[in-house]
Each structure stands twice: as structure tokens, then as C-alpha cells.
């Protein structure tokens, strides 16, 4: 394989990643309608912990999220997490979660963490299966969380917004 061929394949792969980010952005924004009455906890921010430093392993978001709170449900955060890069996984994963925090503080940012959905599925749960409602009381290091209900699915198995909305319905019904 020539240098040129390899470079072109890398370019296609990067374009595929760009496309995925673009689609995820639309998915997260459109989910606002499903969550009518709920407020995005982190505003228009969808990721964090990106490095600008020249010394880096990579300059890509590991995942994105959009969580919501509701004044009538203190201590509860609902949202979507999309994990692009997780060493244990072969493909990007979409996680829809409903998290009840021990603290019912009025400021959701003080009781939630951006990566709660990620950690719930990849670290705190005993089972890691797709398309099944997982409900558990996690042992999170900071002991912030009372209970979690979540459902996860390979990102590229998602065909429509209705599927994502259905996932939220399944964990909140």
C-alpha cells in the first residue's frame, strides 16, 4: 500500500467521524423537544475535557452528553450520553439514562456530573447489555447517586429519533 493510499483511507475515516459528530449534534438538539418542560443542565455545552495541549494522545471528544433537569423533580437528571471512545467497546454507544441523586439541591449542576451516564453504564453497573433496561443502585465513588435506570444501544443501530424517544419512555415509564 502506498503512502497516498494510506492517507486517503485515514481521510475517509476522519470524514466518517465528522459525519457522526454532525449527526449526533442534530440528535441531541432535537431531543430537546422530547424533553419539553425540562431544562438542559449544561446549556449548549455537549462535551468537556478536550485538551488543547500540544502534548496529547488525541484531540477528539471521547463522548458527548445532554442532560436535563426539571423543577418538579429535584435531584433527577435525565439525558443522553454518546460514547465515541471507550477502550472496552468496539463501536460508539448511545446511553439514555434517568438518574436520581441523593442530594435534592436546587442547582442541578451541584448534584450531577456530565459523565454520570457514561460511568453508570461502563463502570458502575454489574451488567453491560444492550437494548435492555438496567436498573440499579450504583456504588459511585462520591456516593452522590441514589438510583439509575438506563438503556444503551450501539449508536449505528439507531435509525430514527422515535427510537431514542422510545428508549427514554422505557426507562421513565
Amino acid at each position, binding site marked *: *500500500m502506498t*503512502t497516498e493510499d*494510506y492517507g486517503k483511507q485515514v*481521510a475517509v*475515516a476522519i470524514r466518517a467521524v465528522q459525519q457522526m459528530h454532525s449527526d449526533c449534534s442534530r440528535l441531541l438538539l432535537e431531543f430537546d423537544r422530547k*424533553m419539553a418542560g425540562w431544562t438542559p443542565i449544561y446549556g449548549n455545552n455537549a462535551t468537556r475535557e478536550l485538551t488543547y495541549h500540544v502534548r496529547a*494522545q488525541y484531540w477528539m471528544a471521547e463522548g458527548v452528553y445532554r442532560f436535563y433537569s426539571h423543577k418538579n423533580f429535584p435531584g433527577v437528571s435525565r439525558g443522553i450520553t454518546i460514547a465515541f471512545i471507550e*477502550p472496552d467497546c468496539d463501536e460508539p454507544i448511545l446511553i439514555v439514562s434517568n438518574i436520581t441523586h441523593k442530594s435534592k439541591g436546587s442547582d442541578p449542576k451541584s448534584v450531577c456530573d456530565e459523565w454520570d451516564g457514561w460511568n453508570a453504564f461502563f463502570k458502575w453497573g454489574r451488567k453491560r447489555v444492550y437494548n435492555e433496561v438496567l436498573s440499579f443502585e450504583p456504588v459511585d465513588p462520591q456516593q452522590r447517586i441514589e438510583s439509575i435506570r438506563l438503556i444503551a444501544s450501539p*449508536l449505528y443501530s439507531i435509525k430514527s429519533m422515535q427510537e431514542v424517544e422510545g428508549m427514554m419512555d422505557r426507562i421513565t415509564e
Partner: protein
Amino acid sequence: MLIAEIHGHRIPEAANSEDYLTSAVFGHLRYLSPKGFWNELFKRVLAMPDTASRTLGDDLEQRGIDLKTYDEVSIRFWSTHPLHGCPDLILVFTGRDTHPLVLLIEAKLWSDKSGTGEFDQITRYLRLLDDPGPVLPPLPQNFSSALIYLTEHDCVPELEDSVVAFGHAGAARCRIFRLQWQDIVEAAHHASRKAAGTEKLILQDVADFLRGRNLEYFRGFRRLDIPPIEVRKLHVFGRTLFTQVPLPIPFKPEPLMGSEGILGRAFLPTGFKIEKGHWV
């Protein structure tokens, strides 16, 4: 700007400017007739929750307003009112035997409305519609009106604040509508099927432009035509990115061009087919 962007010539400084976006989109839509596209669009302009109408289209119908009776639509950019400010757009539909229809549009891109309480932007523009005399350029007499808040996000919470700030909550709720840029893509797409000639071209250009800015609704994940790769746990994002990448069996890690290689490289499976020319 619209055509340049469709062809990939983007100005990064303009990417998040709602003024550029507004002028690019509505600067083209103003050449359309009052029927067709606007009818499709108003079906997608949503009323506030808990109102009698579901959409602006329904609301106009209930008020006995039919777009077919209008001969002309003019779009006015950044009209001014000495007290109530400078809305982004005012659409004026006029016809011989019907009262004019005035639609005030405030457009946003990645930002919320400005002002709170009595300075709430939406509230001020409702007052502008109630006191249209000083608006420049002048508005017609005896018009029906509505206010549309155009955003890329769901904006009900913002508008609920405006309804409260206006004071006459019931009345205000029925006059305020919401629209997303993504709805313009949908409306343009549907209207372009029935349109012909220049109108069709305008609608396709507007839809392509907004799609290029990712301002369309989610329709599943798009897939590029990636050459098949037999991947077995590449762990490329693990700690050993450039030193110990366990590649699939057909892969043979090897620096290219001997010691001159800078990045770690791998020979990919022979299933790849690279051809000269444009990449899709």
C-alpha cells in the same frame, strides 16, 4: 454567501452569525410568491402549548386568513421602532381584497433571547405590533399579525417567560409562535417538489445551505462508503497508540520508508480498493 457555502467556500467568522444566516436564507426566500412555500412553512410554525391552535397555519385558518388571497409578500430586514427595537424580519403579505398580514420574526442562532422582564425582547416586539405607527419602513394599515421566534433549539421555556413578562398572559400566548431553522429545510424540501423553475431552484438552494450548516432534523446516522476493514479490537485509543498497536492479523505494522517514517503505520488488508479521483 449562500451559493458559496453550498460549494464549500465557508467564512468561519460568519458560521455563528445569526444576521448572516438570516440574510442568506430570507434574502432568497423573499423572491418566492406568497403561496406554496409559505403555506408549507406555516404548517410547521408551532403555537405555544395550551392554545387553541397547534400551528400558525391552523391559527390563520381560524382567523379566516387564506394565503391564496395575497398577491405579494415583502420581507423587511431590520426595521426599526424608536421604543421597541429592531426585529430581524417583518414579513408583509398584501393582496387587493384582503387585510394585510404582518409576521414579525426574531431569529436566533446558538443564543437565547435578549432582555428580561419589561426589556424582554419578545415582549417588546409584541408591543411593537400593538404600536406599529413609528415603525420604519412604515407598515400597512389594519393588518393581522403574529410573532414568530426562530431558533435552532426548542424554545418553549424562553417564550413562557415572555408570556409572563408581557402581562396579559392569555392574549400573549395566542400571538407568539415558534419555529426552528430545521423546519425551513423541511418546508423547502416539500414545497420544492411542487415548485418549478426559479422557485424550485431557490428552495433547493436554501435547503442545501441549511443542511450544510447541520440545521436539519435528525434522520438517523448517515454512513460514508468506507472500505471494508476487518477490525479486531484495535485499541487505537488505548495507551499504546504509537508504540504497541495490536492490529488485525492481515495487518503488518511497519514503518514506511525505513527510518524516515514519522508516524506509526500499518499495511491494511488487500480488500481496500483505492482509485484516483474524487472521494465520496
